[in-house]
């Protein structure tokens, strides 16, 4: 008998605009040693499903139908006291935001002990032993010392490990993980995923892993269920789903992701037209009908589950209609970078206020060169200073040192002192689509005001300009009259891009413009950026923590660590060894969706530390897996030049190449194989 059997589960929410069905008719079973990955975009109801599976009724739940049988117990029929006995002890949950799940006023060790005593009824001494064991089990070194810390004294990755330790300490039969790595850096995410992979074998517990990220699911899950608009549309073993996706939605999702070795010159990304259908627009037919490119008359009747292969079934009338979605062909029309330089930022440095006496160095002596018509990708973990560098270039922050040379002229540091021509030629797109537009103004007002401030246009000229810009970002002119709250996240970002392109800028600074968007929207916006560049021959500085996107889009890549540039060069040269050890770790932290891809695991020790910046030697050496020891600690590393690329390290190119090529399946090699 399976551990968990969910049959025809539906959950309704009561909202101000009536009832909304968040989960509709979901059926699945989970065996005792399985890891089920549930993948879906925002609004697909995956978190609601996770809660309903536990028998938890979230606030605002109007009705829950169907049945959930956990090891023979019908959870939906349980009384609260019975549920409390099952929760924690037998079903444990790890949430997305560990800071919200931990009590800020209590040392983390005590929180583990409290949970253990509450659920297992053992004495304090035994509970402490369990606590130390589980902290060690999640690879927290020096468990006794960590246990005394408060949540705010730990890094995001450490906090999430504490949450997993709490779950583990109860030895549950089922662990539900709801986007546990979404808020973490790629390198930290990789470490947490390693940990989960390791304990899933050891623990023998079943897991449900929920994520919007297909790459993460591909790494961790044994079975995958794809969720769309509250319904499961496909379910099967991970290899089957990734190699032979049967549902058009799954196929489209996979086509949205840039694979390793794929660049804008070799292939174009797919995206899914339209958006999640609103509740009242969901008909009786297939849930994906409105966005499916392979829909027919028949799809107006809801399809039944159809088997595709062993254990792999799909809810589609045409499970084999693989050809219906256009194959990934044809590169985007991309401009070629030319020799003259649009932007040259030299030795920019920016310190922020004094915390405990010492200034926080956000950016130290970083330089950046942007050739005309090129896309420069700026990557690094959070805290690496990439956003600050961008803001210094834009003039939103006054740098402490350094110069910004733009179109052959040295610019004043502050945006307020730059003249209109410069403002017109340098624009910016921001990260958060929710705050990028003024909620008090309609789209039209925002855009008109923007262009009129920079160019003395008449009202009708400004109007024409706005309409053209909206058209460029593929929005209907009717959108002018809408308020930002009437737009989806992707549409808001489109308007923000339209705003940046109103004045036909030479340089657009993009500060993580894709990171808050769903995968299917991400690729559409990504394509939009490329098309706009093709039309306007503008240049971009593109900041992102998503390496696959940067490798796809950028002509050259700059890697930052703790406010310093550690490696830079042409994008395709990053497929070749050697790489700066930090870049190597960063690249290997991005899991690949191709199930067969072997990737070398390079994991960083420790965490980003402010103290490392004041080291006399290499700032990366405390976390470096290839450190030479005293030499790296004491002497600042020199720039090492290789063809089309340079990096700061004590290892000479030949030595580093030998080191990195030594282990089988080195990343450089896989990336090359993927490209050929």
């Amino acid at each position, binding site marked *: 008998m399976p551990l968990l059997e969910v049959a025809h589960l539906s959950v309704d*929410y*009561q*909202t*101000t*605009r009536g009832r*909304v069905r*968040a989960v509709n008719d979901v059926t699945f079973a989970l065996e005792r040693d399985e890891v089920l990955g549930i993948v879906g975009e*925002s*609004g697909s*109801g995956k*978190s*609601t499903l996770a809660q309903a599976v536990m028998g938890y009724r*979230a*606030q*605002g739940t109007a009705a829950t139908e169907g049945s959930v049988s956990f090891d023979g117990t019908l959870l939906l029929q349980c009384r609260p006291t019975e549920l409390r006995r099952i929760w924690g002890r037998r079903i444990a949950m790890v949430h*997305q*935001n560990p800071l919200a799940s931990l009590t800020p006023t209590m040392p983390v060790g005590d929180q583990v002990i409290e949970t253990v005593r509450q659920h297992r009824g053992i004495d304090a001494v035994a509970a402490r032993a369990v606590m130390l064991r589980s902290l060690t089990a999640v690879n927290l070194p020096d468990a006794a010392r960590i246990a005394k810390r408060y949540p705010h004294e730990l890094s995001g990755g450490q906090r999430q490990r504490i949450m997993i330790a709490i779950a583990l300490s109860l030895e549950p039969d089922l662990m539900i993980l*709801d*986007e546990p790595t*979404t*808020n973490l850096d790629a390198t930290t995410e990789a470490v947490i995923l390693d940990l989960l992979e390791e304990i899933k074998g050891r623990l023998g517990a079943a897991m449900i892993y929920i994520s*919007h990220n297909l790459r993460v699911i591909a790494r961790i899950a044994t079975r995958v269920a794809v969720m769309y608009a509250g319904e499961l549309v496909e379910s099967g073993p991970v290899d089957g789903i990734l190699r032979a996706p049967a549902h058009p939605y799954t196929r489209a999702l996979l086509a949205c992701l840039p694979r390793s070795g794929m660049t804008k010159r070799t292939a174009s990304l797919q995206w899914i037209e339209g958006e*999640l259908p*609103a509740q009242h627009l969901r008909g009786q037919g297939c849930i994906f009908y409105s966005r499916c490119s392979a829909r027919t008359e028949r799809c107006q009747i809801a399809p039944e589950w159809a088997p595709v292969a062993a254990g792999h079934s799909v809810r589609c009338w045409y499970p084999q209609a693989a050809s219906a979605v256009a194959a990934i062909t044809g590169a985007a029309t991309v401009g070629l970078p030319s020799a003259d330089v649009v932007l040259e930022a030299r030795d920019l440095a920016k310190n922020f206020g004094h915390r405990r006496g010492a200034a926080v160095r956000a950016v130290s002596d970083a330089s950046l060169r942007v050739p005309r018509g090129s896309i420069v990708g700026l990557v690094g973990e959070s805290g690496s200073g990439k956003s600050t560098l961008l803001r210094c270039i*834009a*003039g*939103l922050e006054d740098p402490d040192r350094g110069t910004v040379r733009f179109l052959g002229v040295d610019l004043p540091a502050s*945006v*307020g002192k*730059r003249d*209109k021509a410069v*403002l017109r030629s*340098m*624009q*910016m797109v*921001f*990260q*958060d689509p*929710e*705050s*990028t*537009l*003024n*909620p*008090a*103004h309609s789209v039209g007002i*925002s855009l008109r*005001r*923007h262009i009129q*401030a*920079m160019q003395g246009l008449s009202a009708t000229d400004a109007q024409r300009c706005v309409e053209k810009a909206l058209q460029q970002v593929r929005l209907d002119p009717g959108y002018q009259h809408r308020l*930002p*709250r009437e737009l*989806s*996240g992707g549409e808001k970002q489109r308007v*923000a891009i339209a*705003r940046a392109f109103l004045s036909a800028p030479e340089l657009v600074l993009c500060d993580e413009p894709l990171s*808050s968007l769903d995968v299917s929207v991400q690729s559409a916006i990504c394509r939009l950026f490329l098309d706009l560049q093709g039309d306007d021959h503008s240049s971009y500085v593109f900041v992102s923590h998503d390496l696959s996107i940067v490798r796809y889009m950028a002509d050259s890549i700059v890697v930052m660590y703790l406010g310093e540039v550690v490696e830079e060069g042409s994008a395709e040269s990053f497929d070749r060894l050697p790489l700066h050890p930090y870049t190597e770790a960063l690249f290997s932290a991005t899991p690949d969706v191709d199930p067969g891809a072997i990737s070398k695991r390079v994991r960083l020790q420790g965490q980003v530390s402010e103290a490392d910046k004041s080291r006399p030697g290499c700032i990366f050496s405390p976390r470096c897996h290839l450190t030479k020891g005293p030499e790296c600690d004491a002497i600042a590393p020199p720039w090492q030049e290789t063809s089309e690329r340079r990096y700061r390290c004590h290892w000479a190119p030949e030595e580093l190449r030998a080191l990195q090529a030594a282990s089988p399946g080195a990343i450089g090699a896989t990336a090359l194989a993927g490209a050929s």
Partner: protein
Amino acid sequence: MNARAAPVGVEVLAPPVFGRRYGLRLAVPVAIVAFYLLLAVFGPMAAPYSPTDFNTGPPLTGPTQLHFFGTDGYGRDVFSRVLVGARSILLLSIVATLFGVSAGCAIGMISGYRGGFVDEALMRLVDILLALPGLLLALLILTSLGPSGVNLVIAITIVFVPKSARIARSAILPLRGLGYVEAARLRGARWYSIVFRELMPNVLPELAVEFCLRFAYALLLISSLGFLGFGVQPPTPDWGLMISEARNYVSIAPWTVFFPALAIGIVVVAVNALADALSSTGERRAAQYL
């Protein structure tokens, strides 16, 4: 990022709100305040007697058909005096609140947005003003300027500026680093344009609530100053002044104190209730932006 956890476009609410509660909570105080404003405009016309005429009836008689609220020590009609008194107190309160809250909010918003030295300097000035209790500060100003309607408005404006500045500043602070503000800076917008054209529309609900709260406080302050003899001067009918003049008779003729006090009490409670209702609808409106 957290938005991923909740279904998009689904506004999850706590148990269904009593359908009409929000409506009533707003409608009742609005009706009362509107009634008072009508009094201020038409009160003098509706008054059965001149408010300053002595011996309209025997002094200190209780409420009768001729004198609804009785008469005071000089035989003046309390009902007429309460009706006519509405105009001066409401007019003075509204004008003083408008000046005080507008100036205070402007200072607060500028201070909050600009930060740095401007913020530091303005806020220290505000701190100095805040160190004195409101009534004391108003008394101080009125004793040096002399009691008059104009000086009353000046005094209350000065009392209100620091308090409103604090509120407006804290409303602006979380907005100053948002994307749309930075976009405005990138098109070369000056600080005043950002503060008043980009930011102010987004804090208007908070400012409206602040205006209502200050208005209620102004009514109290003017009555208190009238009571202490620093507000409107006799024989002009004024609620605070009326209470002050009649306080010697409170044991033998309580109506002379009760009715002006009731008039003050009802309007202050109504305006406070209005502020309360506005702030909760403001929150609901704000929630829609998310």
